[in-house]
């Protein structure tokens, strides 16, 4: 089954300079903790999202390292101060090095 793309909501893609922009983002990911076993009793190999990064242009504005306590389909909400226009890039990387990304263009009004 195809994985659905990340879901992202941004409070404003055309913020005023200095405005606080709120971002809500979620991906579909099993977040396999490594603590579970399959029906045969073998451990299911651990694979969680190890890193989430948000950049505005080249500038890193937010980084998160979810642990195994985070449930499947991890959701993250953060804010940043709108100082310049640019492309907001969100990147999720799991322990199998599979990535998902989402982009929003932020333009100062």
């Amino acid at each position, binding site marked *: 089954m195809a994985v659905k793309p990340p*879901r992202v*909501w941004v409070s404003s893609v055309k913020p005023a300079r200095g405005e606080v922009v709120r971002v809500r983002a979620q991906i579909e990911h099993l977040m396999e903790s490594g603590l579970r076993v399959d029906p045969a009793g073998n451990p299911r190999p651990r694979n969680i999202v190890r890193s989430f990064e948000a950049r505005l242009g080249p500038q890193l504005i937010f980084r998160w390292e979810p642990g195994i306590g985070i449930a499947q389909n991890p959701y993250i909400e953060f804010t940043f101060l709108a100082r310049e226009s640019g492309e907001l890039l969100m990147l999720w990387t799991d322990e199998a090095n599979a990535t998902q990304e989402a982009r929003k263009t932020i333009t100062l009004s």
Partner: protein
Amino acid sequence: MTPFSRRHFLSALAAGSATLGCPALVRADGAAGRVVVVGGGFGGATAARYLKRLAPHLQVTLVEPAQRFHTCPFSNLYLAGLRSWDSIGHGYDGLRVAGVEVIHAMADDVDSARRTVRLSTGQSLAWDRLVLSPGVDMRWNALEGYDEAAATLAPHAWKAGPQTQLLRRQMEAMGDGGTFVMTIPDNPFRCPPGPYERAAMVAHYFSRHKPRAKILLLDAKDNFSKKALFLQGWKARYGDMIEWIGLSDDGQVTRVDAGQREVLTAFGQKHRADVLNVIPPQKAGVIAERAGIVDASGWVPVKAESFESRQVAGIYALGDATLAAPMPKSAFAANTQAKVAAAAIVAELTGKAAPVPAYANTCYSLIGPGYGISVAGVYQAEAGRIVEVPGSGGVSPLDGSPDFRAAEARYGDSWYAAMTADIWGQPG
């Protein structure tokens, strides 16, 4: 559709009727017995009519509560003001003349062991074969806060009837500059292009009467039928009036407050509406559940060759209630499924080999007067599954010429006239 696929389709149809045998042979064999058909819409009324046509000695009874059946197809044109309410209503005199017994009642329960169906009038009908074409019912409260009471404030208008007229009255009462919000469910649901045609038809009405109005579509999915064509058509005819928000952009609505005309999305965003049109998740019409032919999905699994239920022998199901993917839940699909089921039933009752089915579908959608688009498909049964015939079907070209769009709008009108005459018209 390519010329190749059309030929293929016609030859498949011809093969189907050859296997079926001509009506004279059926009469000689005396296809006796009684078939009860529940639901007088595109599936059921077609089945009743074609059963009688293929086997005139068969007793065919159609059970439908409405004296006049208003069609979902073209009900969006009624919302736009392009069609009168009466013009999308059809009575059952044509079927009666064709020899079908029509009973205006609800079917309340089915006893599949004793082969009877109980009606709201208290009457019980015995059947040798039962055809259920119940359409959809809403899954009340599947969307938090959206139940039958909420639908009187925020209509779904997804069954043509009082709900459709209520939505139209709300559009008329809305002030210029108001916001029309529509929430759209994930697949599967009745009429995949329907919400997007409705957006265009509502925009047509607003562009003439309330040019400052906005239309906001909150969708629980990222892709939809004829998406590129709709986005292009909306822009061409209505500029920025229609805004569509898909799943990736937090378009999924999780809660409805019909009293406040407010909806809440998965990420907690509130949208306020002046007119709120909630198209909720759906399931097969409730009589299908009573008959025991529905599976855990809420829909009816059917045999690809005949549309007989996979769960109960002797019961056939048609149209929107069925799991017939890749065929969409559309009127045209129900019509061709009904013809196949009618042929299969007559073959079975006369001890003939089952006919080879051929299925077709076209969905026309209107963006505005003189601007139509379409999607078409041809299907066959293969190893117990319905599959699209390779190379058949297709959608209207993107960037089609105005002449092309105008022609498709006319084809849509002709489709409606031909289809309703085939089903409800006086026998010719």
